[in-house]
């Protein structure tokens, strides 16, 4: 439920309650005031009757004016005091049952006791009250309607900065290294939110930068010790005596240094791609790169008796030459590395997609894990370091391509949508 709808519901409920309570109170007060007025006019009549009786010692003549009647009834006993009351009675004017306000008092005229009753119609008071209630209800309706219309028109504009912020945050990517840009709205709540978001993303950015620099620096720092180890192994290799006794050890150390070097190289490459250190505006013939790579790998393909099936159309893309080579290289290397003897590699290139598929002894891979760093299928004996596809994925991330993995009829299919 939208905040506004929730607020609106509460608002409407509260308004209705306030108006109902207010109207009831207004009704009660107004009624009391009107009755008091009516009573006052009845009292005037009473005073007039009393003073007439005192003056003339007889009852005044009954003149039933508009909505006012006076009756005298003979009583036995003279009761002091005056009684006010309301009663439903037939209105002689309209002949309908109406509320009547009555004032009754006993008066002694020429030794006779009379009970005088002055009656005034309450119709006008009731009419007035009715009007007040109608007006009140109308007001409620009007205010609610106005509120609704105003909210409808204004609320969208009021919340605009909020949705702008949401949109910006949604598009924000740490890896892009751009500061979050949020406009000043002039509304303190939104500005507070924006301010906090900006400082939060800035901090995240700094932390991310530190982590990224750390991995790049760590990889750099490893290069010199690796160089020292490798050069010393090569120096040791020149000593016939050492070689004679330690050839296996030297070979093992050499291979491990190679693996570390490879790993280091790949981690650095990943960091550099993440850092956006490759300009992407170079014009590249992707088909030529593929032909060149397959040419370089021809020897290897032949030795593993792998059949290469190529369907290339000339494709001209705007990318980075090195990154394009990295994609082709890594996909092809994997296709060879995890292939089986006498297997097949299919390369298809259309204007919007590059697909490289290969046979393998491995079953279908887990889609989510395929491009995870250091993921290798547990059954594989090949010597990859599990970074090849992560690098391809990272290249895709900066170039806007997408990498997809499928398994179909014994073929592991890797496709890049350009």
């Amino acid at each position, binding site marked *: 439920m939208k905040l506004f709808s929730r607020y609106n519901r509460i608002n409407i409920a509260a308004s209705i309650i306030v108006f109902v309570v207010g109207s009831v109170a207004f009704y009660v007060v107004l009624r009391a005031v009107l009755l008091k007025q009516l009573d006052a006019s009845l009292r005037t009549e009473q005073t007039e009757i009393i003073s007439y009786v005192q003056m003339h010692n007889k009852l005044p003549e009954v003149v039933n004016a508009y909505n006012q009647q006076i009756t005298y009834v003979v009583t036995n006993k003279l009761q002091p005091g005056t009684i006010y009351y309301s009663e439903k009675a037939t209105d002689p004017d309209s002949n309908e049952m109406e509320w009547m306000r009555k004032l009754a008092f006993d008066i002694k005229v020429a030794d006779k006791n009379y009970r005088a009753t002055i009656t005034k119609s309450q119709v006008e008071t009731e009419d007035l009250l009715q009007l007040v209630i109608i007006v009140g209800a109308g007001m409620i309706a009007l205010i609610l309607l106005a509120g609704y219309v105003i909210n409808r028109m204004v609320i969208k504009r009021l919340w605009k900065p909020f949705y702008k912020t949401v949109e910006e945050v949604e598009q924000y990517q740490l890896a892009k290294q751009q500061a979050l840009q949020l406009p000043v709205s002039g509304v303190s709540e939104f500005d507070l939110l924006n301010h906090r978001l900006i400082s939060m993303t800035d901090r995240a950015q700094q932390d991310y930068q530190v982590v990224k620099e750390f991995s790049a620096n760590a990889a*750099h*720092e490893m*290069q*010199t010790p*690796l*160089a*020292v*180890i*490798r*050069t*010393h*192994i*090569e*120096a040791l*290799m*020149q000593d016939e005596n050492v*070689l*004679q006794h330690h*050839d296996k050890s*030297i*070979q093992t150390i*050499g*291979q491990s*240094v*190679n693996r570390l*070097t*490879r790993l280091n*190289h790949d981690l*650095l490459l990943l960091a*550099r791609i993440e850092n956006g*250190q*490759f300009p992407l505006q170079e014009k590249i013939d992707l088909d030529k790169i593929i032909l060149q790579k397959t040419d*370089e790998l021809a*020897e*290897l393909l032949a*030795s*593993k008796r792998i059949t290469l099936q190529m369907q290339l159309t000339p494709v001209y893309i705007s990318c980075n030459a*090195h990154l394009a*080579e990295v994609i082709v*290289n890594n996909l092809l*290397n994997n296709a*060879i*590395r995890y292939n089986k003897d006498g297997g097949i590699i299919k390369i298809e290139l259309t204007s919007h997609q590059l697909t490289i598929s290969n046979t393998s002894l491995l079953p279908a891979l887990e889609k989510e894990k395929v491009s995870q760093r250091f993921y290798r299928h547990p059954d594989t004996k090949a*010597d990859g370091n599990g970074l090849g596809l992560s690098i391809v994925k990272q290249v895709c991330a900066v170039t806007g391509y997408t990498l997809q993995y499928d398994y179909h009829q014994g073929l592991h299919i890797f496709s890049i949508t350009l």
Partner: protein
Amino acid sequence: MKVLIIEDEPSLNKAMVDYLHHQQYLCESVSTFHDALEKTEIYQYDCIVLDLMLPGGSGLELLRQLKANQKSEGVIIISARNELDDKLTGLQLGADDYLTKPFHLPELSARIAAIIRRKNLQGNTVIRFEELEVDVQAKTVKVQGTEISLTRKEYELLLYFLVNKNRVLSKDAIASHLWGDDADLAENLDFIYTHVKNLRKKLLQYGAGDYIHSIYGMGYKFSIK
């Protein structure tokens, strides 16, 4: 041939000096920016091996000064930073080559040899070893005056052996020389055997001595013995 090694990591510096010394280079070595500047101002070298991160200043700055002083030495940068920018800047500033750490010593030796050959192109472009003659400009190989035909890989392999003669070369070093660093597939190591075998067969066939020796299955050595 005089080579100046500028590298601040002492053990790496020493390993390079030792290796190049065996390749008949006269090596001098320094480990700081200022020593390097002093040496290059006083002496003339055929090739300078330059590390980019030095105590006292950047290797790139040193390169800038060398070129400003109209020094003609060939410069090969060795750096732990495999940054494209550094590489481009280095090459733009006039470096002849760029090698990323960790490198193979025979590779360094081959690159230095190539730079020196390029610098002396007007002079002798033929490398001789006993009855072998390799013309690096024409890319031809002769045995006792008869030209023999080699594949590109065989030619590169022979050249690599010649500039690293009498040294044990590991298969890894040979593989990364022939296929570059990007080709890391272990299977490449098996092709070395094929290429070496073919090269050896051709050389023997044309009457050259048997100079390529397999060393404990880990590599090869090109020598008279």
